[in-house]
Structure formats: C-alpha cells, structure tokens
C-alpha cells in the first residue's frame, strides 16, 4: 500500500457557530490529482487553506510524508513543497509576469557588490523558460499581468505554483470565470503538472472539468466528508447526489 503524501486527520475549524470543517480525514497520494467538490460553503476553501497553512485548524493533525507537521503560515507549507493557487486570484496586476512568478523569492546577484540587487536578467530567463515549458501562450514575460486576459492571468498564478511546488500543488477554482478556450488551457496545464510527478488538489464546481483531469473525487458536505470516489468508476450523478445529499450513492468507496 502506497504511503499518503499528505494526510489530514480529524480536522476541525469553527468560525463562531459555523462549523466550516467538522472532523475531516483526507489523503493525498503521490502523483495523483484529487478533485475536491461540494456546494457553496461546504468548506472546500477552508480545507485547502488548512493544507496550505493559510488557516490554522482548531483541532486535528496533519501528516506530511508520514510525519506530523504544523503549518502556521503559507511559508511553512511552501517550505515542505506545497504551493497554492488561491480562489481570489493572487497576482499583482501592475507587476509583470516575471515579477509575479518570483514575488517573495526574488533572485539577487551572487557577488558582494550586487547581492542586494535583483538579478532581473536571470529571473526573466527562468520565467521565460517556465512559461515556455508549461506551454502558456504568452508573448513576453515583461507584460504587466493586469494587461493579460483572465485565462492568461490564471495561467500565471498556476505557473507560479507549479514552478515552485516540489510535492503538492493546490488549486482553488482555477477555471472559474474563464471562457471555454481559456479553461481548456488551464486544464491542459493541470495535466502537465501531473506529468511532472506532482500531486494536485483541485477545487472546482465544474464537474466535467473534474471528471476530465482527476483520479479521485473527494466530496465535502457541510464540513464533513460525504464520500470519496474513483473518477474512472463513477458517474456524474453519483457525485451530484453526494454533493446535495439527496440520494445516497452505491459507489461510495
């Protein structure tokens, strides 16, 4: 049996009377894409924020590669190789693509006289390399991100997570608010992440997208697990009934 890369055990998070997460167990295996679905307010964003260090749970444990870890901030998660694309798009519109890709991790010179200064040439080279290898359709890494289309901008956010993520990339609704063609680009990008051997957690309300790219589907309902399904052995209606809780599905694993 393969060991889980990231495991959550009995995670609780309450906002006052709201039980955003009510004892959730979650496993992510190396190299898989898992879809995280559920109704609005089911707790999806809260759950991935727990995984990415942006929210500290009230109770429960997090295991990474079998060892307990405490994630107090996004930096903690990043330090162990977990990168996140947040629902509320985390790019800075007036900075260019290169600056956004390297934000918070800028490269500086390596001589005594330039070690405090940005090595823009090296960053542009690296950024162009990442963008090209991910086949994001961008003419130049020197365009301000605010001038890009929604899909390109989302691609930049995804590319940033992929190029820094060493183990896990988490994406919160990366295709929301995108046109058909742009969503396609981002989905292709997600498949390429998997080819790199990274594990992916994908939140989406778009079930066709989830069925297209995921290996398993984890359904959250009102802060608890409603079921986990193997994508290839599941029909959309099974997922829908788990999400809504209207009809109990036979396919619950």
């Amino acid at each position, binding site marked *: 049996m393969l060991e889980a890369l990231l495991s959550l055990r009995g995670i609780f998070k309450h906002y006052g009377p709201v039980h955003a997460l009510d004892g959730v167990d979650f496993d992510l295996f190396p190299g898989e894409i898992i879809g995280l679905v559920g109704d609005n307010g089911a707790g999806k964003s809260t759950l991935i924020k727990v995984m990415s260090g*942006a929210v500290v749970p009230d109770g429960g444990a997090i295991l990474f590669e079998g060892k307990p870890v405490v994630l107090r*901030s*996004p*930096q903690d998660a*990043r330090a162990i190789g977990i990168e*996140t694309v*947040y629902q*509320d*798009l*985390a*790019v*800075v*519109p*007036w*900075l260019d693509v290169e*600056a956004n890709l390297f*934000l*918070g991790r*800028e490269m*500086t010179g390596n001589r005594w006289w330039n070690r*405090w*200064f*940005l090595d*823009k040439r090296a960053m542009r080279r690296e950024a162009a390399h990442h963008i090209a290898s991910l086949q994001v359709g961008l003419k130049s890494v020197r365009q*301000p*991100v*605010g*001038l890009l289309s*929604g899909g390109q*901008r989302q691609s930049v956010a995804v590319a940033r997570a992929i190029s820094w993520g060493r183990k896990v990339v988490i994406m919160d609704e990366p295709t929301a608010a995108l046109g058909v063609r742009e969503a396609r680009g981002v989905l292709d990008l997600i498949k390429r992440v998997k080819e790199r051997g990274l594990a992916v957690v994908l939140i989406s309300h778009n079930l066709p997208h989830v069925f297209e790219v995921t290996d398993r589907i984890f359904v959250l309902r009102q802060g608890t697990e409603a079921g986990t399904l193997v994508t290839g052995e599941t029909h959309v209606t099974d997922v829908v009934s788990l999400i809504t809780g209207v009809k109990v599905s036979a396919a619950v694993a």
Partner: protein
Amino acid sequence: MAVSTTRESRAAGLRRLLEEAVLVPWAGVLLGLIGVCIVVAAISPYFLTVDNILGNVALYFSWFAIAGFGEALVMIGGGLDLSVGSIMGLSGMVSALVLASGMPLWLALIAGLAVGAFAGAVNGFAVTRIGLNPFIATLATLGVFRGMAYGIVLGAAVTPPNNAAGKAFTALGGALGVVPVPVIVMVVLAVGMYVALAHTPFGRHVYALGGNEAATRLLGLNINRLKMILYVLSGLTAAVGGILLTARAGTALPDAAEGYELGVIAGVIIGGVSLTGGQGTIPGVLIGAALLGVINNGIVLAGLAGYWQQLIIGLVIAAAAGLDVFRQRLAYLRSG
C-alpha cells in the same frame, strides 16, 4: 486562432506602442515639464539662467522632492502620509534646539532624523497595529506633530547659536559653488531611492503591497513590517527636508513647512504615483516636483499674484489625477 493580417498587426502594434507610452508613468509628466519650461522661458529670459534654475527653481522644489520620495514609497505601497509637513517642522525644530543647547552638529542632525523616524514609526504603528485608515491616522498625527513643534518651544522661534556648529548647520542651507546643498542631497537621495525601488526585492515588495495586499500576504511577505518600514522612511525623508529647510531659513519656526504636505503629495501624484497604490517611480516624483518648482518660478517671473499658484497647481493635480484614472481604464484591469 485569430487570423492576423499585416494591417491588423500593424494597427495592434501601434496600439501597443501608444499603450506603453501612456503606461510609462513619467512620460506624460516629462512632456508637461518641457512644455511649461518653454512657456516660462518665453515669458522671461531670466528663467533659463544657471542661477535661477539651481538657486531658485531646484532649491524650491528640493524640499518637496526630498519629502516626496518617502511619501511616494508610502503611496506606492497603498498608504498615505499627511503628516510630512508637520514632521518637517518638528524635526527642524528639534535640530535647532539641540544646537541651541550647545551640542555639536552631528548630534543635532541625528536628533532631528531620529525624531522623523520616530514620528514615522508612530504612523506605522497606528496603521498596522491599531489598524487605522492611513488618511485618518496621519491626519491625526499631522495635528499632533505640529502641536509638539509649538509645544516644545511654547510657540517661539529657535535660532541656532553663532558658534562653529551653528554656522556649519546654516551652511547646509547654502551652496557648494552654484549648487545648493539641498539640491545635492535631493539628487543623492533620488539615486538611492530609485535603486531601492527599482532594483531590490524590497522595491518589488512595495509595488506588490500596493498592487494587491491580500496576494502579497498570501505569498508570505510580512505586510505589517513592510508598512512600518515605509512610514519610517517617509518620516526620515521628511526630517531630511525639514532640517535642510531650517538650515536654509537660518531659524526654526514652529509653523515651518505648514501645509507642505499638499505640495509634497501634489508632486508625488503629478509624478505618476497612483492614488490607489502599486504604481509610481522615483524619476516621476522628481519630475513632478520639478514641474511644481517651474510653475512657481513662472508665476513669480510673470509677476502674477501668489494665489494664481494655488489655482494653477490645483489644475495640474486634477490633470495628473485624471491621467491616472485614464491609465487605469486603459489597462482595463479586471483582476479581483
């Protein structure tokens, strides 16, 4: 895939070029500055003399530019510092007081700068720890710091003593050859600030903070520390300006630099710093302040009454702010 014809791509290329010209934050201001210079030179042949350009125009706008550098950092970071005029007055006053008590020059300078840095830290504390809106926080400290400048001397003027330290102090308001010392300080600060903003990770973080604060926090940057640094730097540059202003005047008045925050912020906005944060450059701030200086000089040379200055500068600020809005629209920002 879009089929692109030569004509289409040429039109698109032209549009790109135009867009980029408007997006270079200080291109428009530079054109404005050149235009105003031509007008003023036509009004008076005295305008384009070395004495006038350095001794009047550059000296006049050096205070606004020096304090403007720190103000620009705060504003690019999405904040605002209304207290710069009061900090200028207070730090100049403290330097003069230290000299008047017989202390050496270096101690007077350090005391003045320390007061500026401390005042900036108070602003930073109010914004980051208490969570006050920057407008409210620095509007309050504008009053507090000005009150302190009056309070510590009970409203009197303080003149540096006629000893070596006092003379060295007033020399800071003088000139090296034809170049006024404040102008030299302004140029040195401009270079340092430009490098910090355009070529260091710190500079990028300032733009990120003003451009998308939530994203900057999620990316793991320490927002509060960054804001604190910005307000302290603003206090420091205001103190430099205030000390030089006092040195130039030869005496510290409690109402020195009163209302200067308007000129400082005007220069910064004219120079292309966005009111909504995330944008702006140091060369732009320098050009913006220079534009104010030339307009002021032109009004004097044309023999117009002083109130024209307020009217004209008001119009220029409105034009600059309008250009800012136009630039935002042009960039059709749709990010959330």
